[in-house]
């Protein structure tokens, strides 16, 4: 359909996920109507200048592993091919974002979906312009973690008024990860920088009232004070980890907290990875950093049990090597059993490669990464904002890695590790891209606000919630106390589907009521 879009897929199958069925992907992407031409570059990161010569086209869509960016491939491509922003889009064929999905077809579907959405964005860049509503130049940032603080600092230079809500339990490090152990003062420094900035006002979460959606914006009052208006919300909530499923075991948060507090960790420590599902490389990176810190501080005996060693992150291989040199014992396992007999706690299993069995007796501490999701306060805030979640988080299949992730509300952007496992660098990049997207939305030119907005006649509404079910944008909310449907005006896209479906004829579209439409039709 669009000949101008060239999809370029890197075929270097070095991801720890194993071959991502590049052949299958190629076949399926070639059939896609969004992509005009498909080029597969074998090992794109090696001798990129030569490889780039194969690629010619007006708009280019790249798919590759994180190493491609590391090696400067994309910036080289932009320079060599003379591509302006918006003429090149990039997605990672990265295992961590695919970890939500178990089967390989789901992974393929997800990847194809993302590539196709990117293709559509490229093809229809004109169509994108009329969607966003004009945003007022004040921004609310929910979350005082690394991504929230980064976004606040990026925005404060833009002469915008920024309000930052500090979450109750301030995170220790980028994404509350072990990376903070390497740069302990980072969050503190950023926090003090944000607090001293004259463009940023900081409020504690405890004072925050409910977020009200008003036309073209949101209002919140803090501590019962006056309503503050916002054009946009950056939602950068904390992730929190569920408790480990084994009694007595720690999850990673518990471990990192202890490490941050410099409390001693001694004896025989066993990390049990890949237990329910594969542990993402970002998490492994954290664990290895934590292991290094534990080894530096004490003479603990560290075991890391895993099913597969994943190296799909820059620098991860080196971390494995360092950990091994420091005496960390890595064991690949199969048929793992946890036994508790006569007061003796045993972990037994087999090494799938050698077939040899191993046994760890009476470990002092077992650490099992829990499944991570949003914290309770973040979930509450998400509900107030009417955000749609998938699998308890925001890594939606079509949420585009490296592109700002707009929620189902125009003007609400989700940012940071709430979108999935990211390392500190990833979080910083995400915050920057969200800020870029917001700034673009705030340019008044070329943006047409939605003309028709649904309004509900409370007297006619019978609270059957047909509108809530049919709205494609989840823009119809419920007023439970008064038992009427209540449109979320910022999310309404004015399609009129709710008005047509409403059996009580209680919904009126502005400038589009049935009388107006019929009169106009008669006048033809």
């Amino acid at each position, binding site marked *: 359909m669009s000949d101008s879009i060239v999809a370029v897929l890197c075929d270097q199958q070095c991801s720890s996920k194993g071959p991502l069925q590049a052949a299958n992907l190629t076949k399926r992407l070639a059939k896609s109507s969004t992509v005009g031409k498909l080029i597969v570059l074998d090992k794109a990161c090696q001798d990129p200048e030569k490889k780039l010569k194969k690629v010619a086209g007006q708009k280019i869509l790249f798919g590759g592993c994180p190493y491609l960016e590391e090696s400067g491939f994309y910036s080289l491509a932009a320079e060599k091919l003379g591509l302006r922003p918006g003429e090149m889009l990039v997605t990672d064929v990265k295992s961590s974002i695919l970890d939500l999905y178990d089967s390989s077809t789901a992974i393929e579907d997800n990847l194809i979906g993302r590539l196709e959405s990117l293709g559509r964005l490229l093809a229809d860049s004109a169509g994108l312009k009329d969607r966003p509503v004009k945003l007022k130049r004040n921004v609310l940032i929910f979350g005082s973690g690394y991504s929230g603080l980064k976004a606040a600092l990026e925005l404060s230079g833009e002469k915008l008024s920024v309000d930052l809500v500090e979450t109750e339990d301030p995170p220790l490090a980028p994404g509350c990860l072990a990376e903070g152990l390497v740069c302990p003062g980072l969050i503190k420094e950023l926090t003090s920088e944000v607090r001293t900035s004259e463009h940023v006002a900081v409020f504690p979460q405890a004072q925050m009232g409910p977020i009200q959606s008003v036309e073209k914006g949101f209002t919140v009052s803090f501590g019962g004070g006056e309503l503050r208006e916002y054009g946009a919300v950056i939602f950068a909530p904390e992730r929190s980890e569920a408790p480990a499923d084994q009694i007595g075991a720690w999850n990673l948060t518990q471990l990192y907290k202890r490490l941050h507090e410099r409390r001693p960790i001694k004896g025989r420590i066993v990390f049990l990875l890949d237990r329910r599902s594969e542990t993402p490389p970002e998490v492994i990176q954290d664990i290895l950093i934590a292991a290094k810190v534990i080894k530096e501080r004490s003479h603990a005996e560290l075991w890391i049990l895993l099913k597969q060693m994943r190296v799909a992150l820059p620098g991860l291989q080196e971390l494995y090597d360092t950990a091994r040199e420091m005496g960390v014992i890595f064991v690949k396992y199969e048929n793992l059993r946890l036994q508790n007999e006569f007061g003796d706690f045993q972990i037994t299993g087999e090494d799938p490669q050698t077939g040899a069995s191993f046994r760890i007796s009476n470990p002092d501490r077992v650490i099992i990464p829990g499944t991570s999701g949003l914290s309770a306060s973040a979930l509450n805030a998400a509900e107030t904002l009417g955000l749609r979640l998938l699998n308890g988080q925001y890594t939606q299949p079509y949420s585009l890695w490296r592109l700002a992730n707009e929620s189902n509300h125009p003007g609400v952007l989700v940012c940071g590790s709430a979108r999935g496992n990211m390392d500190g660098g990833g979080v910083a990049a995400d915050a920057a891209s969200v800020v870029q997207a917001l700034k673009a939305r705030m340019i008044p030119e070329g943006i047409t606000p939605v003309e*028709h907005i649904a309004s509900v006649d409370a007297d006619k509404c019978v609270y059957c919630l047909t509108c809530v079910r*049919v709205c*494609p*944008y989840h823009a119809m909310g419920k007023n439970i106390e008064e038992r009427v449907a209540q449109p979320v005006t910022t999310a309404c*896209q*004015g*399609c*009129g*589907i709710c*008005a*047509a*479906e409403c059996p009580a004829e209680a919904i009126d*579209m502005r400038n*589009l009521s*049935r009388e107006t*439409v*019929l009169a*106009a*039709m*008669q006048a*033809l």
Partner: protein
Amino acid sequence: MSDSILIVHCAEGAKKALARMTEEGYKLPPRFKTFELPCTGSVNEVLLMENLSNGAKGVVVLGCRKENCKHLDGNLKAERKVARVKRLLSEAGAEGRFVEMVYAAPDEGKRLHETLLGFARAGEAEGKS
């Protein structure tokens, strides 16, 4: 408005298809009137019936191609309503009046033109017999 055929189209793909049709030089007879709505999903039975009872020969609901609706499935919702009105018309024995659902992509100017003219011809044939 008697004898006219009203085309209710959405502001997305169908609008582009109509524009493309005109661009390609295919013209519709003057009895065709067009009316734009944000999405064909905002059409309902009352709107269709009112138009027919006001004297329109037929109403064509023109939406985006299936699975291409900007508003997810507005065109499919419209199709269901059109089907319902069709059934009502046949039950009421309202001969010579019709409602139809048509899907068009922005590059289908010629096909759209042929389909629309087909409705007009079918209407005429019915009128004569």
